[in-house]
Protein backbone atom coordinates (compact mmCIF):
# COMPACT_ATOMS: atom_id res chain seq x y z
CA UNK A 1 0.00 0.00 0.00
CA UNK A 2 1.35 3.42 -0.97
CA UNK A 3 -0.13 6.21 1.09
CA UNK A 4 -0.93 9.40 -0.78
CA UNK A 5 -0.38 12.85 0.71
CA UNK A 6 -3.72 14.58 1.15
CA UNK A 7 -2.60 17.96 -0.18
CA UNK A 8 -2.09 17.18 -3.87
CA UNK A 9 -5.53 17.43 -5.46
CA UNK A 10 -5.83 20.20 -8.05
CA UNK A 11 -8.37 21.39 -10.59
CA UNK A 12 -7.68 22.43 -14.16
CA UNK A 13 -10.02 24.39 -16.42
CA UNK A 14 -10.48 24.71 -20.16
CA UNK A 15 -13.06 26.63 -22.20
CA UNK A 16 -15.35 24.70 -24.53
CA UNK A 17 -16.31 26.11 -27.91
CA UNK A 18 -19.82 24.73 -27.46
CA UNK A 19 -21.89 22.70 -25.03
CA UNK A 20 -20.99 19.28 -26.38
CA UNK A 21 -17.31 19.56 -27.30
CA UNK A 22 -14.87 19.06 -24.45
CA UNK A 23 -11.83 21.28 -24.32
CA UNK A 24 -8.72 19.37 -25.33
CA UNK A 25 -6.32 21.11 -22.96
CA UNK A 26 -6.71 23.15 -19.79
CA UNK A 27 -5.72 26.81 -19.71
CA UNK A 28 -5.45 27.26 -15.94
CA UNK A 29 -4.89 25.07 -12.90
CA UNK A 30 -5.46 25.92 -9.25
CA UNK A 31 -4.65 24.71 -5.79
CA UNK A 32 -7.57 24.01 -3.48
CA UNK A 33 -8.66 24.63 0.08
CA UNK A 34 -11.49 22.16 -0.30
CA UNK A 35 -13.30 20.27 -3.03
CA UNK A 36 -16.52 18.27 -3.17
CA UNK A 37 -16.77 17.74 -6.94
CA UNK A 38 -18.36 14.39 -7.57
CA UNK A 39 -19.79 12.47 -10.54
CA UNK A 40 -23.07 12.61 -8.62
CA UNK A 41 -24.55 9.21 -9.46
CA UNK A 42 -28.16 9.26 -8.23
CA UNK A 43 -29.54 6.13 -6.63
CA UNK A 44 -32.85 5.15 -5.12
CA UNK A 45 -34.32 2.01 -3.64
CA UNK A 46 -37.44 0.46 -5.11
CA UNK A 47 -39.26 -1.30 -2.27
CA UNK A 48 -41.96 -3.72 -3.35
CA UNK A 49 -43.85 -6.75 -2.09
CA UNK A 50 -41.21 -9.23 -3.11
CA UNK A 51 -41.67 -11.43 -0.03
CA UNK A 52 -37.97 -11.07 0.76
CA UNK A 53 -36.51 -10.61 4.25
CA UNK A 54 -33.81 -8.27 2.93
CA UNK A 55 -34.00 -4.55 2.30
CA UNK A 56 -34.03 -3.69 -1.40
CA UNK A 57 -30.87 -2.92 -3.36
CA UNK A 58 -30.17 0.48 -4.87
CA UNK A 59 -30.77 1.24 -8.51
CA UNK A 60 -29.11 4.05 -10.47
CA UNK A 61 -31.57 6.59 -11.79
CA UNK A 62 -29.34 9.35 -13.11
CA UNK A 63 -26.27 11.49 -12.55
CA UNK A 64 -25.81 15.08 -11.46
CA UNK A 65 -22.08 15.77 -11.76
CA UNK A 66 -20.86 18.79 -9.85
CA UNK A 67 -20.29 20.16 -6.38
CA UNK A 68 -18.23 22.92 -4.89
CA UNK A 69 -14.59 23.83 -4.61
CA UNK A 70 -12.95 26.39 -2.41
CA UNK A 71 -9.79 28.34 -3.13
CA UNK A 72 -8.16 31.58 -2.07
CA UNK A 73 -8.90 34.66 -4.17
CA UNK A 74 -5.90 35.35 -6.41
CA UNK A 75 -5.71 38.26 -8.82
CA UNK A 76 -4.31 36.22 -11.70
CA UNK A 77 -6.99 33.52 -11.41
CA UNK A 78 -10.22 35.30 -10.59
CA UNK A 79 -10.65 37.01 -13.97
CA UNK A 80 -11.15 33.63 -15.65
CA UNK A 81 -13.71 32.60 -13.04
CA UNK A 82 -15.62 35.87 -13.29
CA UNK A 83 -15.91 35.51 -17.05
CA UNK A 84 -17.04 31.90 -16.66
CA UNK A 85 -19.60 32.90 -14.02
CA UNK A 86 -20.99 36.06 -15.61
CA UNK A 87 -20.72 35.14 -19.29
CA UNK A 88 -19.21 38.25 -20.85
CA UNK A 89 -15.74 39.73 -20.60
CA UNK A 90 -13.83 42.58 -22.19
CA UNK A 91 -10.05 42.79 -22.00
CA UNK A 92 -8.41 46.21 -22.19
CA UNK A 93 -4.86 47.45 -21.75
CA UNK A 94 -1.66 45.55 -21.23
CA UNK A 95 0.58 45.04 -18.22
CA UNK A 96 -1.76 45.20 -16.44
CA UNK A 97 -4.75 44.09 -18.43
CA UNK A 98 -8.14 45.10 -17.10
CA UNK A 99 -10.79 42.38 -17.38
CA UNK A 100 -14.35 43.65 -17.08
CA UNK A 101 -16.94 40.92 -16.64
CA UNK A 102 -20.71 41.18 -16.45
CA UNK A 103 -23.89 39.62 -17.79
CA UNK A 104 -24.16 39.77 -21.58
CA UNK A 105 -26.88 42.27 -22.51
CA UNK A 106 -27.62 40.33 -25.69
CA UNK A 107 -27.96 36.94 -23.95
CA UNK A 108 -28.17 37.42 -20.18
CA UNK A 109 -28.78 33.72 -19.43
CA UNK A 110 -25.60 32.74 -21.23
CA UNK A 111 -22.23 31.71 -19.80
CA UNK A 112 -19.46 29.54 -21.25
CA UNK A 113 -19.21 25.81 -20.80
CA UNK A 114 -16.01 24.56 -19.21
CA UNK A 115 -14.13 21.31 -19.10
CA UNK A 116 -12.83 20.72 -15.58
CA UNK A 117 -10.21 18.13 -14.74
CA UNK A 118 -10.22 17.00 -11.09
CA UNK A 119 -6.76 15.54 -10.66
CA UNK A 120 -5.00 13.59 -7.94
CA UNK A 121 -1.60 13.54 -9.70
CA UNK A 122 -0.41 10.05 -10.46
CA UNK A 123 -3.55 8.54 -8.91
CA UNK A 124 -6.72 9.47 -10.70
CA UNK A 125 -8.52 12.06 -12.79
CA UNK A 126 -12.18 12.84 -13.43
CA UNK A 127 -13.02 15.03 -16.40
CA UNK A 128 -16.21 17.05 -16.08
CA UNK A 129 -17.52 18.29 -19.42
CA UNK A 130 -20.13 20.90 -20.24
CA UNK A 131 -19.54 22.43 -16.81
CA UNK A 132 -20.74 25.81 -15.68
CA UNK A 133 -19.89 27.88 -12.65
CA UNK A 134 -23.22 28.51 -11.01
CA UNK A 135 -22.24 30.52 -7.95
CA UNK A 136 -19.35 32.29 -6.30
CA UNK A 137 -19.39 33.01 -2.57
CA UNK A 138 -16.61 35.30 -1.32
CA UNK A 139 -15.85 35.66 2.36
CA UNK A 140 -13.23 37.35 4.46
CA UNK A 141 -12.79 39.03 7.80
CA UNK A 142 -10.20 40.97 9.77
CA UNK A 143 -7.00 38.99 9.99
CA UNK A 144 -7.93 36.58 7.22
CA UNK A 145 -7.25 35.81 3.61
CA UNK A 146 -10.06 36.14 1.05
CA UNK A 147 -11.74 32.84 0.33
CA UNK A 148 -13.87 31.96 -2.65
CA UNK A 149 -16.20 29.00 -2.96
CA UNK A 150 -17.49 28.09 -6.41
CA UNK A 151 -20.48 25.89 -7.18
CA UNK A 152 -20.19 23.79 -10.32
CA UNK A 153 -22.64 21.75 -12.38
CA UNK A 154 -21.57 19.62 -15.32
CA UNK A 155 -23.30 17.60 -18.00
CA UNK A 156 -21.08 14.58 -17.78
CA UNK A 157 -18.28 12.99 -15.74
CA UNK A 158 -15.65 10.68 -17.20
CA UNK A 159 -12.91 8.81 -15.33
CA UNK A 160 -9.65 9.09 -17.26
CA UNK A 161 -6.67 6.80 -17.24
CA UNK A 162 -4.13 8.71 -15.21
CA UNK A 163 -1.83 8.79 -18.25
CA UNK A 164 -4.53 10.79 -20.03
CA UNK A 165 -4.65 13.48 -17.36
CA UNK A 166 -3.54 16.77 -18.87
CA UNK A 167 -0.10 18.29 -18.52
CA UNK A 168 -0.39 21.15 -16.04
CA UNK A 169 3.04 22.68 -16.63
CA UNK A 170 2.90 26.45 -16.57
CA UNK A 171 -0.80 26.54 -15.71
CA UNK A 172 -0.49 27.45 -12.03
CA UNK A 173 -0.27 31.04 -10.87
CA UNK A 174 2.64 31.76 -8.54
CA UNK A 175 1.22 34.47 -6.31
CA UNK A 176 -0.13 34.99 -2.82
CA UNK A 177 -3.85 35.17 -2.14
CA UNK A 178 -5.53 38.50 -1.45
CA UNK A 179 -5.82 39.21 2.25
CA UNK A 180 -7.87 41.50 4.45
CA UNK A 181 -4.93 43.92 4.48
CA UNK A 182 -5.53 44.56 0.76
CA UNK A 183 -9.27 45.21 1.02
CA UNK A 184 -11.25 48.43 0.92
CA UNK A 185 -15.05 48.37 1.00
CA UNK A 186 -16.84 51.54 -0.10
CA UNK A 187 -20.44 52.28 0.87
CA UNK A 188 -22.12 54.94 -1.20
CA UNK A 189 -18.74 55.72 -2.76
CA UNK A 190 -17.12 56.40 0.59
CA UNK A 191 -14.40 54.24 2.12
CA UNK A 192 -14.38 54.88 5.87
CA UNK A 193 -12.44 51.78 6.93
CA UNK A 194 -15.30 50.59 9.15
CA UNK A 195 -15.83 47.09 7.72
CA UNK A 196 -14.61 44.09 9.70
CA UNK A 197 -16.18 41.22 7.75
CA UNK A 198 -17.78 40.69 4.37
CA UNK A 199 -19.64 38.01 2.51
CA UNK A 200 -20.71 38.31 -1.13
CA UNK A 201 -22.65 35.75 -3.15
CA UNK A 202 -23.06 35.97 -6.92
CA UNK A 203 -25.57 33.34 -7.92
CA UNK A 204 -26.71 32.28 -11.40
CA UNK A 205 -29.22 29.91 -9.73
CA UNK A 206 -28.25 27.22 -12.19
CA UNK A 207 -30.75 24.50 -13.06
CA UNK A 208 -30.31 21.04 -14.46
CA UNK A 209 -32.39 19.42 -17.17
CA UNK A 210 -31.36 15.78 -17.28
CA UNK A 211 -33.67 14.68 -20.07
CA UNK A 212 -33.75 11.13 -21.33
CA UNK A 213 -30.05 10.97 -22.03
CA UNK A 214 -28.85 8.22 -19.77
CA UNK A 215 -26.27 9.49 -17.33
CA UNK A 216 -25.49 12.66 -19.28
CA UNK A 217 -27.67 15.71 -18.69
CA UNK A 218 -29.13 17.63 -21.61
CA UNK A 219 -28.26 21.05 -20.24
CA UNK A 220 -27.57 23.07 -17.13
CA UNK A 221 -29.20 26.41 -17.91
CA UNK A 222 -28.57 29.46 -15.81
CA UNK A 223 -31.53 30.62 -13.77
CA UNK A 224 -32.31 34.04 -12.35
CA UNK A 225 -29.30 36.14 -11.46
CA UNK A 226 -29.02 37.35 -7.88
CA UNK A 227 -26.27 39.13 -5.99
CA UNK A 228 -26.44 39.39 -2.23
CA UNK A 229 -24.25 39.51 0.82
CA UNK A 230 -23.65 40.89 4.25
CA UNK A 231 -21.26 43.27 5.95
CA UNK A 232 -20.18 43.74 9.53
CA UNK A 233 -19.24 47.32 10.32
CA UNK A 234 -18.30 49.47 13.30
CA UNK A 235 -21.45 50.93 14.89
CA UNK A 236 -20.43 54.57 14.64
CA UNK A 237 -23.76 56.34 14.22
CA UNK A 238 -27.43 55.68 13.54
CA UNK A 239 -27.46 56.55 9.83
CA UNK A 240 -27.50 53.03 8.40
CA UNK A 241 -29.71 51.84 11.27
CA UNK A 242 -32.28 54.47 10.32
CA UNK A 243 -31.75 53.88 6.61
CA UNK A 244 -32.28 50.14 6.78
CA UNK A 245 -35.62 50.67 8.57
CA UNK A 246 -36.97 53.97 7.30
CA UNK A 247 -35.40 54.13 3.84
CA UNK A 248 -33.38 57.28 4.57
CA UNK A 249 -30.29 58.01 6.65
CA UNK A 250 -32.20 60.77 8.46
CA UNK A 251 -35.56 58.98 8.46
CA UNK A 252 -37.83 58.90 11.49
CA UNK A 253 -40.98 56.91 10.66
CA UNK A 254 -40.90 53.44 9.20
CA UNK A 255 -41.62 53.52 5.48
CA UNK A 256 -42.01 51.05 2.64
CA UNK A 257 -38.88 52.43 1.00
CA UNK A 258 -35.85 50.17 0.97
CA UNK A 259 -32.61 52.10 1.30
CA UNK A 260 -30.07 51.57 -1.44
CA UNK A 261 -26.53 52.69 -2.08
CA UNK A 262 -23.53 51.48 -4.02
CA UNK A 263 -21.18 48.86 -2.58
CA UNK A 264 -17.69 48.34 -3.97
CA UNK A 265 -15.57 45.53 -2.57
CA UNK A 266 -12.08 46.25 -3.80
CA UNK A 267 -8.95 44.13 -3.30
CA UNK A 268 -5.81 45.91 -4.45
CA UNK A 269 -2.14 44.95 -4.49
CA UNK A 270 -0.06 47.74 -5.95
CA UNK A 271 -1.10 49.34 -9.23
CA UNK A 272 -1.11 46.16 -11.31
CA UNK A 273 -3.25 43.72 -9.34
CA UNK A 274 -6.85 44.30 -8.35
CA UNK A 275 -10.17 42.50 -8.01
CA UNK A 276 -13.15 44.79 -7.57
CA UNK A 277 -16.77 43.72 -7.22
CA UNK A 278 -19.36 46.44 -7.66
CA UNK A 279 -23.08 46.76 -7.01
CA UNK A 280 -24.40 50.12 -8.14
CA UNK A 281 -27.59 49.90 -6.07
CA UNK A 282 -27.43 47.55 -3.11
CA UNK A 283 -30.62 47.41 -1.04
CA UNK A 284 -29.80 47.28 2.65
CA UNK A 285 -31.91 45.40 5.20
CA UNK A 286 -31.73 43.52 8.48
CA UNK A 287 -29.48 45.99 10.31
CA UNK A 288 -28.59 44.54 13.70
CA UNK A 289 -26.19 45.82 16.32
CA UNK A 290 -24.48 43.53 18.79
CA UNK A 291 -23.76 44.64 22.31
CA UNK A 292 -20.37 43.74 23.73
CA UNK A 293 -20.52 43.34 27.50
CA UNK A 294 -16.75 43.34 27.69
CA UNK A 295 -16.66 46.89 26.37
CA UNK A 296 -15.29 46.07 22.96
CA UNK A 297 -16.51 48.32 20.13
CA UNK A 298 -20.09 47.62 19.12
CA UNK A 299 -20.49 46.21 15.65
CA UNK A 300 -23.46 46.07 13.35
CA UNK A 301 -24.25 43.65 10.58
CA UNK A 302 -26.61 44.10 7.67
CA UNK A 303 -27.66 42.22 4.56
CA UNK A 304 -27.63 43.64 1.07
CA UNK A 305 -29.07 42.57 -2.23
CA UNK A 306 -28.47 44.11 -5.63
CA UNK A 307 -31.46 45.93 -7.07
CA UNK A 308 -32.90 45.00 -10.45
CA UNK A 309 -31.81 47.32 -13.21
CA UNK A 310 -32.17 47.45 -16.96
CA UNK A 311 -28.48 48.34 -16.94
CA UNK A 312 -27.02 44.95 -16.16
CA UNK A 313 -23.61 46.35 -15.27
CA UNK A 314 -25.32 48.20 -12.40
CA UNK A 315 -26.58 44.94 -10.96
CA UNK A 316 -23.08 43.54 -10.78
CA UNK A 317 -19.73 44.02 -12.42
CA UNK A 318 -16.27 42.72 -11.68
CA UNK A 319 -13.10 44.48 -12.68
CA UNK A 320 -9.89 42.51 -12.40
CA UNK A 321 -6.43 43.87 -13.16
CA UNK A 322 -3.63 41.38 -13.61
CA UNK A 323 -0.87 40.11 -15.88
CA UNK A 324 -3.13 37.81 -17.94
CA UNK A 325 -3.64 39.05 -21.50
CA UNK A 326 -7.12 37.54 -21.83
CA UNK A 327 -9.65 36.10 -19.42
CA UNK A 328 -10.30 33.14 -21.70
CA UNK A 329 -6.50 32.65 -21.80
CA UNK A 330 -6.52 32.73 -25.59
CA UNK A 331 -3.23 33.79 -27.15
Amino acid at each position, binding site marked *: VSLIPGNVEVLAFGFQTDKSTAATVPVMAIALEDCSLDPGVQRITTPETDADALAPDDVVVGAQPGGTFKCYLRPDEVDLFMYALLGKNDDTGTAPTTHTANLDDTAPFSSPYLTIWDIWPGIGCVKYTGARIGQLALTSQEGGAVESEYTIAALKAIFLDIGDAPDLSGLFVDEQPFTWAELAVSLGGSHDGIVSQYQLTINRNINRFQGDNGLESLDIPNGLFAVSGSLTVAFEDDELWRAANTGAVDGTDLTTTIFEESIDIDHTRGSDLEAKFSLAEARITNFKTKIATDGKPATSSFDFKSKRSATLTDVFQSIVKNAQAHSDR*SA
Partner: protein
Amino acid sequence: VTNADAAPAPKKPTPKKKPAAPATRTFQLKQSAENAVHRVSFGASPRISIGAGETFATTDPRLAARLAAQPHLEEVTS
Protein backbone atom coordinates in the same frame (compact mmCIF):
# COMPACT_ATOMS: atom_id res chain seq x y z
CA VAL B 1 -66.90 15.48 -77.53
CA THR B 2 -66.56 19.11 -76.91
CA ASN B 3 -63.63 21.02 -75.67
CA ALA B 4 -65.43 21.44 -72.36
CA ASP B 5 -65.54 17.71 -71.87
CA ALA B 6 -61.93 17.19 -72.73
CA ALA B 7 -59.63 16.29 -69.90
CA PRO B 8 -57.69 19.33 -68.80
CA ALA B 9 -54.14 19.47 -69.97
CA PRO B 10 -51.77 18.49 -67.19
CA LYS B 11 -50.36 21.53 -65.40
CA LYS B 12 -46.72 22.16 -65.88
CA PRO B 13 -45.05 21.73 -62.55
CA THR B 14 -43.97 25.09 -61.24
CA PRO B 15 -40.25 25.05 -60.64
CA LYS B 16 -39.50 25.13 -56.93
CA LYS B 17 -37.53 28.12 -55.80
CA LYS B 18 -34.26 27.20 -54.25
CA PRO B 19 -34.03 28.65 -50.74
CA ALA B 20 -31.67 31.58 -50.73
CA ALA B 21 -28.32 30.74 -49.21
CA PRO B 22 -28.12 32.38 -45.78
CA ALA B 23 -26.04 35.51 -45.89
CA THR B 24 -22.69 35.36 -44.18
CA ARG B 25 -22.08 38.29 -41.87
CA THR B 26 -18.65 38.97 -40.47
CA PHE B 27 -17.75 40.91 -37.32
CA GLN B 28 -14.59 42.32 -35.84
CA LEU B 29 -13.55 44.46 -32.90
CA LYS B 30 -14.30 48.11 -33.48
CA GLN B 31 -11.39 49.80 -35.17
CA SER B 32 -12.11 53.20 -33.68
CA ALA B 33 -9.34 54.85 -31.69
CA GLU B 34 -11.54 55.13 -28.59
CA ASN B 35 -12.22 51.39 -28.45
CA ALA B 36 -9.58 50.13 -26.05
CA VAL B 37 -10.97 46.60 -25.85
CA HIS B 38 -8.54 44.12 -27.40
CA ARG B 39 -10.58 40.97 -26.83
CA VAL B 40 -14.24 40.37 -26.15
CA SER B 41 -15.53 36.97 -25.02
CA PHE B 42 -19.14 35.94 -24.63
CA GLY B 43 -21.70 33.31 -25.66
CA ALA B 44 -21.96 29.67 -24.70
CA SER B 45 -22.64 27.40 -27.62
CA PRO B 46 -20.92 28.72 -29.66
CA ARG B 47 -18.58 30.53 -27.35
CA ILE B 48 -17.26 33.58 -29.13
CA SER B 49 -13.91 35.19 -28.50
CA ILE B 50 -12.77 37.91 -30.88
CA GLY B 51 -9.41 39.61 -30.50
CA ALA B 52 -7.81 42.52 -32.31
CA GLY B 53 -7.23 41.64 -35.97
CA GLU B 54 -9.58 38.64 -35.82
CA THR B 55 -12.98 38.21 -37.42
CA PHE B 56 -15.98 36.00 -36.69
CA ALA B 57 -18.31 34.99 -39.52
CA THR B 58 -21.77 33.51 -39.13
CA THR B 59 -24.73 32.60 -41.32
CA ASP B 60 -27.05 32.41 -38.30
CA PRO B 61 -29.22 35.54 -38.39
CA ARG B 62 -30.00 35.41 -34.67
CA LEU B 63 -26.37 35.12 -33.73
CA ALA B 64 -25.52 37.91 -36.17
CA ALA B 65 -28.09 40.14 -34.45
CA ARG B 66 -26.43 39.42 -31.10
CA LEU B 67 -23.02 40.21 -32.51
CA ALA B 68 -24.32 43.42 -34.05
CA ALA B 69 -25.64 44.47 -30.63
CA GLN B 70 -22.28 44.04 -28.92
CA PRO B 71 -20.92 47.51 -28.18
CA HIS B 72 -17.30 46.69 -28.98
CA LEU B 73 -17.96 44.88 -32.27
CA GLU B 74 -18.66 46.15 -35.75
CA GLU B 75 -19.70 44.43 -38.94
CA VAL B 76 -17.10 44.06 -41.65
CA THR B 77 -18.49 45.51 -44.84
CA SER B 78 -16.82 44.69 -48.12
